[in-house]
């Protein structure tokens, strides 16, 4: 078994308190997982909707932090402020408006989305999924997709683009977005309960065999259908088969594939869903936990859907995020946007600090073995531009990056993705619209 070397039972025991995270100081693991080899590199892509107000984001000079980035003070040596990055394929390029659908749909795919409200969806495979295809088999969960907002609820999401584009940044195939989980309970269940094995709940070998038979049967059904059906139908069945395969892999690894209520599992409490701060933090905590237990190494997280209208009332703001981003130079609205921009950066800082507080087996921090990219596919929310993107990169990727600076990156986002995946251990010649790896300081 190539799974993690951590004792899962111990891990679960600790979680009893871990899930009170918003109110607790540190993680419950007394001893870091023992490994002979060097700890693996982890990678997260955190996306924020609606760009930012660049006037308040852009550092005035290399040694001064802008108002929005004040929160970076405490992690300054661990972060790179990337400047002048662009996403050429997020521009209209003849497709007209729809920048907020493209800010998410293009964010990790680097392709021009097919403009459609529903029929014939087409994006591209996103960079996290390329990495998961190559390296996801090393962990129980190849990749984890999270977010704070569920799918769009009504109508077209943006100027003739389906809501699918604005609700997702992680794409398994050009036609299938990954479902992003927005419920911390479900994330917990996926990360930990699925893999619980003990006492009464020990799954008997026979039951595992039964589950396997069931999946064999439905896979066979799909293959038979595939022979009878045509082009786009077959694509749907391929997607189905992929999903069956993923579940099978989990059963192989853990002897259990279906979520099970574990009587011995820790008691869990969650913050109010409408307590935005606590909700955000428990989701970020769960990513850190998943990484710490090495259940997964690749994660995407959406603070909001493209063009999100979240109302940050707890920050004293009245009005949706998107509406405010088009401030028309109204001073109050600009101030509100700056407050939101800064609040979101502060959550990134929270996550980075969390990673920094967790020790790896070699005594270094989890952050040292991470790359956390934070930013938006839109530059300035008021302008809908896709150059000069607000972008931060934290962590030193297992010693392959030397953070602690402002970097005039002057390139395409996909150049950066090539540089990140290489450090993650996945070498690519090209991705999206790039064939050129960006130089990151080391």
């Amino acid at each position, binding site marked *: 078994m190539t799974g993690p070397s951590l004792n899962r039972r111990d891990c679960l025991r600790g979680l009893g308190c871990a899930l009170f995270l918003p109110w607790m100081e540190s993680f419950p693991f007394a001893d870091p997982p023992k490994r002979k080899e060097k700890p693996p590199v982890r990678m997260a892509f955190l996306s924020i909707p609606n760009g930012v107000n660049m006037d308040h984001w852009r550092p005035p000079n290399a040694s001064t932090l802008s108002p929005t980035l004040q929160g970076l003070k405490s992690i300054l040596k661990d972060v790179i402020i990337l400047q002048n990055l662009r996403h050429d394929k997020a521009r*209209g390029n003849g497709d007209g*408006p729809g920048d907020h659908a493209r800010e998410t749909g293009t964010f990790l795919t680097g392709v021009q989305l097919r403009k459609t*409200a*529903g*029929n014939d*969806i087409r994006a591209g495979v996103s960079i996290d999924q390329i990495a998961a295809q190559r390296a996801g088999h090393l962990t129980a969960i190849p990749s984890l997709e999270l977010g704070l907002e*569920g*799918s769009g*609820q*009504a109508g077209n*999401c943006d*100027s*003739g683009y*389906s*809501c*699918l584009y604005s*609700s997702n940044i992680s794409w*398994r195939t050009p*036609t*299938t977005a990954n479902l*992003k*989980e*927005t419920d911390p309970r479900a994330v917990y269940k*996926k990360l930990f309960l699925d893999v619980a094995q003990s006492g009464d709940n020990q799954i008997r070998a026979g*039951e595992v065999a*039964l589950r396997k*038979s*069931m*999946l064999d*049967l*439905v896979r066979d*059904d799909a293959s038979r*259908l595939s022979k009878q*059906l*045509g*082009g*786009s*139908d077959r694509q*749907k*069945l391929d*997607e*189905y088969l992929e*999903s*069956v395969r993923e*579940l099978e892999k989990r059963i192989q690894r853990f002897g259990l594939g*279906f*979520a099970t*209520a574990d*009587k011995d599992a820790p*008691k869990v*409490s969650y913050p109010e869903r*409408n*307590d935005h701060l606590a909700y955000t933090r428990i989701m970020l905590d769960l990513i850190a936990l998943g990484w710490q237990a090495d259940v997964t190494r690749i994660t995407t997280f959406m603070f909001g859907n493209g063009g999100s209208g979240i109302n940050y009332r707890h920050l004293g703001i009245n*009005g949706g995020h998107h*509406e405010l981003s*088009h401030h*028309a130079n*109204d001073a109050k609205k600009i101030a509100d946007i700056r407050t939101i921009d800064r609040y979101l950066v502060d959550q990134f800082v929270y996550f980075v600090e969390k990673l920094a507080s967790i020790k790896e087996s070699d005594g270094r921090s989890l952050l040292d073995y991470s790359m956390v990219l934070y930013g938006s596919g839109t530059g300035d929310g*008021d302008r*809908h531009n896709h150059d000069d993107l607000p972008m931060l990169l934290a962590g030193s990727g297992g010693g392959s990056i030397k953070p602690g600076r402002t970097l005039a990156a002057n390139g395409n986002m996909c150049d950066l993705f090539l540089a990140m995946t290489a450090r993650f251990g996945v070498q690519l010649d090209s991705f999206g619209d790039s064939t050129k790896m960006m130089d990151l300081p080391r």
Partner: protein
Amino acid sequence: MPVRALILIVLCAVCATAPGADLVPATTDATNGAAKDILAAHCFSCHGSQRTKGGVNFETLVTRTLNGANLKIWRKASSLVKQEEMPSEETEHPLNAADRAKLIAWLDQLRYDGPPDPGRVTLRRLNRREYGNTIKDLLGVEIPVADMLPRDDIGDGFDTSADVLALPPALFDKYADAARLAVESAIEVGQVATIVIPDQVTVTVMVAGAPLKAPIAEGVLTLDQGGECQVSLYAPTAGRYRIKADLGGIQGGKEPVRVQVLIDGQAEKDQNVTAPKPRTSSLGSIELSQGMHRLSLIFINPETVETPKGTIKRSLLLGDITMEGPPARRPGTAHQALIGDGPGRDGDPRATARVVLANFLPRAWRRPVSAEEIDRLLAIFDQALALGETWAGALRHPLQAALLSPNFLYRVEHDKPADGITTLSNFEIASRLSYFLWSSMPDAALFTAATAGELTKPAGRAAQVRRMLKDSRSRALVDGFASQWLTLGNLETFQPDPAQYRGFDDRLRESMLMEPLEYFATMLAEDRDLTELIVSDWTILDPRLAAHYGLSLTGSIRQKVTLTGKDRGGVLTMAAILTVTSNPDHTSPSRRGKFVLEQILNDPPPPPPPTAGGLPKPDAGHPTTARERLEQHRNRAECVSCHKRLDPLGFAFEGFDVIGRTRDRDEGRPVDTSGVLPGGQKIRGPEDLKKILVTTHKTDFLRCFTGKMMTYAIGRGVDYRDEDRIDAIVADLEKNGQRMTALLLAVVESPQFLQRSARNP
């Protein structure tokens, strides 16, 4: 080519249209010629034979037939010209407004003239609503799908969009969990369910109407200022459940902490809590029906008590809540209906199981199945039985596999001539009908009709449609179609500015939501004239909403009401719609106008340029109405052409505030509901606008509504291939007073519904 009277007043106004241009120029040869001259002068330099940017050559394209591929290019061109994206900024030949309008008018009347094409719907997954309904009809149990499955993504305005309904692994896992719960709820094997609440459900703590923050520590919730803890309980089957809670109290003085226990709002008991630390105590043994229930624990007597030891806040400490039950008992009706009494002492377990599967599988997969398909599932039963499961327990596994199979999760339709147009089979049509009208599987009568070959005949289909509409399951058209058409999902999350709209609460939200849904349900039940969606003299009110509207209502229940005033009637002036088209702190005539264009006339305006911004905040020193601020704001050149089209429609509704109450003042100043439509016609108030919508624009409205109904029914966005059929349906409808049932029948009779094309266009 038919002259398309698309567009009289509102629609003719592509954004750049000069005021006064009432009609689109008729497409005579002369106007055709003029449009082609414009095309040549402004477009050929980049998209002609000299240069063909983006591979588009209009010089040759004008000479070609209007088949699907060519028409697609024209449609894209039209959209880009409307949005003023083309001719591009770099052009040396900018287009003036009048020429732009001519060009657009010409582009928009180009119609498909290729061979008939019913379109192709990709293999479609059951969406969340359909899955829940199907499980209920198939297994006889309800599972809490809303808690188990995520909201589906939306394509073309609806959750039925085949290409958007994907099945990534994370979702497959959830469907696997749902299948397991469904089967375990249906088939009882005698054990007692124990449910630990905090693991499974949301705990909401309300103090003085506001959610309580934070004081959960070490698994214990401390209430020290009163408040109500609400827990959703899910009873997998009907029966008696024992509910226990870990309760403790910091007493302070002699009076014990007192808790009132309510189930679904009904008081069950009062309980004194004397243990200082949380200790498990029984809240009683309560009979619950299958499904979701609400348990409330209300801390009745919070108080700050002075004691010799100091000041103590009397507090309730709340730990885990558990629910156990129901006790083993005779199997329920779902169990009986699915698997019967079992083989008994002398029967053959395997043969009996095979009979069960042979009955179940055709219903689950919605088609006849082969003996081999049954035997494959029976092998799983054998395997489970060999592992020591009971007979009933072993049957759970093949049933679960059947529910995970693509034959269940997807709506499978076959192409018969591998290349060309296929007429769907009887069973495929049965599923199309049942998922369109019921969002669920076919019932026994539909299966019987399919077996008898009746569904490939118009009379057979019509009989089924009429029967199905009378069935309560047709409510799915209300919750599925109407709710999404009217974008009511947005009402769920709408929060008006609490400072201005203190009266708004969840009860009002529910009443608001009730009105358009019940109205639509009544339209369906009474087979009414579709124009009553716009203009009518009746609606459905409950006391809360009547009070909201300033109307009196006799009695305390929801009822159909005849309206005497002129301002309500029809969906556009229902509080729900007025609210979802508002901003939290001010009305938005532009958004209300956009709603009319998108949802009533199917003529969506282009989005605003990014830097347009919203309305400025009102200035306390100089009060201005939303309308006045909008009028200042929109005077910018890049804004005015679209706002001229949007705003007059929205101004008509300025007599309604953010949450849909009538008003005659906004920010203390009188409201003005008058507007001038782009065609020059003056209107005042909603009555004028609605009248225009059901007279001059009746055809446009019916075309829009038919298109949306068809999109919902077939699971793909309608396009150029469907326009002629939609026009024909509308023409027929208009001849017969445009009744709801006639529309549904016409959609069912369309090739789009009954056939599929083997190839994607």
